[in-house]
């Protein structure tokens, strides 16, 4: 009995010791990283200053009402570009994923090549994409479209590939045993089964791309990101606030729509 109590005490003190150790290590890592970056912790306590500044300066005033037309137009363009980029990338990456998934691939080398390719696309920073594309395709919507397209292609190929691999080989084998061809297996067995998962990935990517389109626009000088940068750097904060507000409304409504579709799919 006594030894039981001792054992329990030892268990808990060991657990507490481990927790303290983790906290101390993380704390030291925090301090080290702060010094390395030159980050002052007290600025974390001044977060409300930023919010206050935001509320003070970004409230759209009378003068910024004149910008509504331009903002809405650019917002709409940005949204369309994000959707188009996601859809095109989804189509291409579905093919790549089917050919590259370990369960369906014609040769394992093909699978590795596609894996490496998608990893490369995903990990090249969006800044590099934007700059290279800007240099060749100049300042227009196509540049933003292509930058989003490449990033999405890399991401969706991996996501689709994992979805297809989760599907397993049993059903594929069962269909093959009935004499179905490769294309029939994919069209009749695989796609209907994974359609819901693919759909939710696509919706997630659209949400993400609408947000990222702002960054890409800022870098390539197109769409909503460009006009935010323009207003912000020319100190027209009211108009910039309007841009932020419209981005919030767009992103939240895209999120709500995709949640609704997700509920209908479940």
């Amino acid at each position, binding site marked *: 009995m006594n030894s039981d109590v001792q054992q329990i005490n030892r268990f808990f003190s060991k657990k507490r010791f481990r927790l303290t150790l983790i906290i101390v290590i993380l704390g030291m*890592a*925090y301090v080290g*990283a702060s010094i*390395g*970056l*030159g*980050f*002052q912790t007290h*600025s*974390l306590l*001044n*977060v409300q*200053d*930023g919010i206050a500044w*935001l509320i003070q300066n970004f409230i759209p005033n009378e003068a910024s009402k004149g910008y509504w037309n331009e903002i809405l137009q650019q917002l709409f363009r940005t949204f*369309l*570009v994000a959707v*188009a980029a*996601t*859809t*095109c990338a989804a189509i291409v990456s579905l093919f790549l994923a089917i050919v590259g998934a370990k369960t369906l691939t014609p040769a394992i080398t093909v699978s590795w090549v596609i894996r490496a390719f998608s*990893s490369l696309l*995903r*990990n*090249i*920073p*969006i*800044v*590099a994409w934007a*700059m*290279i*594309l800007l*240099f*060749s*395709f*100049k300042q*227009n*919507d196509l540049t933003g*479209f292509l930058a989003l397209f490449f990033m999405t292609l890399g991401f969706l190929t991996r996501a689709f590939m994992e979805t297809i691999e989760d599907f397993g080989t049993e059903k594929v084998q069962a269909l093959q045993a009935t004499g179905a061809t490769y294309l029939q297996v994919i069209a009749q067995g695989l796609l209907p089964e994974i*359609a*819901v998962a693919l*759909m939710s990935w*696509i*919706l997630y990517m659209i949400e993400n791309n609408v*947000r*990222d389109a*702002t*960054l890409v626009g*800022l*870098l390539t000088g197109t769409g909503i990101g460009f006009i*935010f940068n323009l207003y912000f750097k020319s100190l027209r904060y009211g108009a910039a606030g309007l841009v*932020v507000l419209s*981005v*919030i409304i767009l*992103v*939240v409504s895209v*999120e709500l729509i995709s949640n609704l*579709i997700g509920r*209908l*799919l479940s």
Partner: protein
Amino acid sequence: MIKPENQVSIPTRIPAGPRLSIPLRFRDRRRVTILLTLIVLAYVTLMTLPTMIPNHFKLGAALVSFTENIKIMFLQPHLANTTFVTLLGALGQSILLAFLTTLIGSAIAFFFALASTRRLAPTYLVLGIQSFMAVIRAIPTVLWVLIYSVVFGLGANAAVVGITFHSVAYLTKVYADSMDELSPGIIETMQAMGLKKSAIIRQAIIPYLIPSYLSWTFIRFEINFADAIAVGAAAGAGGIGYQLFMSSSFYFNFHEVGVMVYMILAFALVLEIISYRLRSVTHQ
């Protein structure tokens, strides 16, 4: 077998209800939703694509110059305006930025998640925090950093606070979602045993949460690394992103961009290996 003379036959009854029947496959809600969504997406895409290409645009020339630049970037990387050591330092700075923001973000988000999980918190708190976080998530990270660089001045403070904002909003949602998956029976049992909330959190929620906590935090670290680069370029917050921005849009030197992209890819490879190991550890 003897057949009866008068066969008894039961008249088949016509099923009650409307005669007009919709084919079964169109009554499937999922099928209709997927079809409709696909049609809308295809329509939007087909309408947008032709309008994106500007007038007098030479696609051929653009593609040639694009492949040319890609070739320069990947096949002939060398440095001109900076040294390798400077770049290594800048990469380290970006990594530190990503690490620090993930650390602060996950610590803050954990408490917000506790306050916004349906297992522990009242409904009004859940709805309030979740919608507040949705609004913060909706603003892109770069805008946060730009806004804070006006308040705090350009530099590490603005970058850290700006990226942390988005991390907290993101992590709060995913942590709260994974806490919601915990079966309510466990918490009810512990409450019936008379345990306090703090004990429930320490003994039931945290041990249950650790695998998904680790994997989500790691995913956020990867996102933050990408964000740190983007923020360095778009908001001048330093790190490898700033160097990337300088050499591509000031010096137009794609040889140098190639070196930086290779450095970033090398680190991304390390991250991918870690995430693979992490997945195999947490799946056990």
